[in-house]
């Protein structure tokens, strides 16, 4: 694994420019914390199932990375480890400067408030309006009423749901519910956005809109780590990718070492 994690030299090296016109390397300078650092992580469940096997990866700030693989490959498990919904059996994880492996239970909310998370099952609260669901991500930060109103409205506008703030989730289409979940994930302008199958239940046209939405969010500076099994989705907006198969990384679009100066 030494070629994956070369010796840290301290000085920041200029990244290689790739075909997309931006830096393709996932290996960040060691002088600042990375949004995501996964170091030799394994996860075994109590029934003996091994969901992840010695997974390592790093994501630089501002990157858009697909986490790909078939259903059951370990994508959701990896994301859950990143926001501390599960604990690794082995290895270390660092997210947004948090040492997730050693994080105390009472500190987990702080980690999650620093992230934007789009869950596979959306997790919209049925009895709250769209506005209420999105605003909640700011209420947990203790922001004032005016600020919550302003930022929530902006987030809803960004995802194209302005005018639907008073709707309950069940009154929205599947694609609109996705957008509402995305709005909640971005309303606090997180540095890192984790998305688990955000286009799972919608048609291709709506999926394309969602991907373009993520692109726009990424262009504003948010690092995106998007899990999907859909190759067609990744083709809409080619980005860096990490592919899991039965808990192991089998494909990685990154160069194995840092580029030479």
């Amino acid at each position: 694994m030494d070629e994956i994690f070369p010796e840290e030299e301290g000085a920041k090296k200029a990244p290689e420019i790739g075909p997309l016109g931006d830096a393709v390397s996932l290996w960040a300078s060691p002088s600042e914390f990375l949004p995501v650092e996964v170091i030799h992580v394994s996860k075994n469940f109590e029934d003996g199932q091994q969901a992840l096997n010695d997974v390592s990866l790093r994501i630089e700030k501002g990157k858009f990375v697909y986490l790909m693989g078939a259903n059951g490959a370990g994508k959701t498990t990896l994301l859950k480890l990143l926001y501390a919904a599960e604990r690794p059996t082995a290895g270390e994880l660092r997210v947004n400067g948090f040492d997730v492996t050693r994080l105390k239970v009472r500190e987990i909310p702080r980690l999650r408030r620093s992230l934007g998370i789009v869950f596979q099952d959306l997790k919209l609260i049925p009895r709250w309006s769209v506005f209420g669901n999105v605003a909640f991500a700011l209420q947990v930060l203790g922001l004032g009423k005016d600020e919550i109103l302003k930022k929530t409205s902006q987030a809803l506008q960004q995802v194209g749901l302005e005018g639907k703030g008073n709707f309950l989730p069940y009154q929205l289409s599947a694609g609109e519910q996705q957008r509402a979940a995305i709005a909640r994930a971005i309303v606090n302008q997180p540095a890192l956005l984790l998305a688990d199958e955000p286009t799972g239940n919608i048609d291709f046209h709506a999926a394309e809109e969602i991907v373009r939405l993520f692109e726009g969010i990424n262009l504003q500076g948010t690092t995106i780590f998007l899990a999907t099994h859909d190759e067609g989705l990744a083709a809409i907006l080619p980005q860096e990718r990490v592919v899991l198969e039965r808990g192991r990384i089998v494909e990685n679009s990154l160069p194995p070492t840092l580029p030479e100066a």
Partner: protein
Amino acid sequence: MKGFFFRQAWQNLIQNLWINAFTLATITLSFLIFGLFLLVAVNARELLEEWGSRIRVTAYLSDGVTAEETNRLQDTIRSLQEVQAIIFRSKEDALKSLEGKFPGRTGLLKGLSRNPLPASLEIQLKPAFRDKAGVDRVAGKLKALQGISDLQYGAEWVERFSAFMILLQVLGAGVSGLLLVATILIVANTIRLNIFSRREEIEIMRSVGATGLFIRAPFYLEGIFQGLAGAGLALGILFVLFHLFWAKVYDPLKILLGNFPLHFLAGEQGAGLVLGGLILGFLGTQVSVGRYLKV
């Protein structure tokens, strides 16, 4: 943030309306019974104190006791540690008092050749000695004095009433204690049901980064509100019942009861009742939140 907590708590109360209404009714009933015992105890204690103040020993003076001997007797009795005050009633005072009890029949008494009524000393005891033991002690000392032909005293009825009041208070405390424990358990159960019905929502809130306090706070507000509302309602109902009792039962019988003034609970007692509701609501919530809401 506080507004969010209150809104959430209110929404939770409305969402499980019947369960919460049942809980509120039970809390109200518990506090009503407790309040009733308290009201009876407060008034009975005042009555007991008032009756106790009427405990006195009457020493009838022998015929032929001179004024000087009467004064010496009063000084001796006044020096006893149990004695608070002495009122001297002459033979003439006694006759006038008797005449006053039979208005329109004074002619009967005018026929008497001499005044058969003795002079007397009404001896009022200090509060600490207004019981059977105190009265017996004083009576024993008075019996040894010259010039006293007879003694009249009796504290048995006060003792019996006092014992009855103690029994009532113990019973009241016991029943109230059980009811208040029941109140805590009922609030705990209602909150537990609310936690269960909102478990998915709680999970979502955790996933988005809500702290334990953020999630728990609305439940505490629910429990406190139920306790406050229940105690407040009970106080209101008690007030209405008290005034109904006054108008329909007490007022017509007031004279027979010696015009004893009946009081509702004092301001601080009422406030204490409501505060008790708040505390019980909090405790009930804590029982459930501590056990079923690990966030």
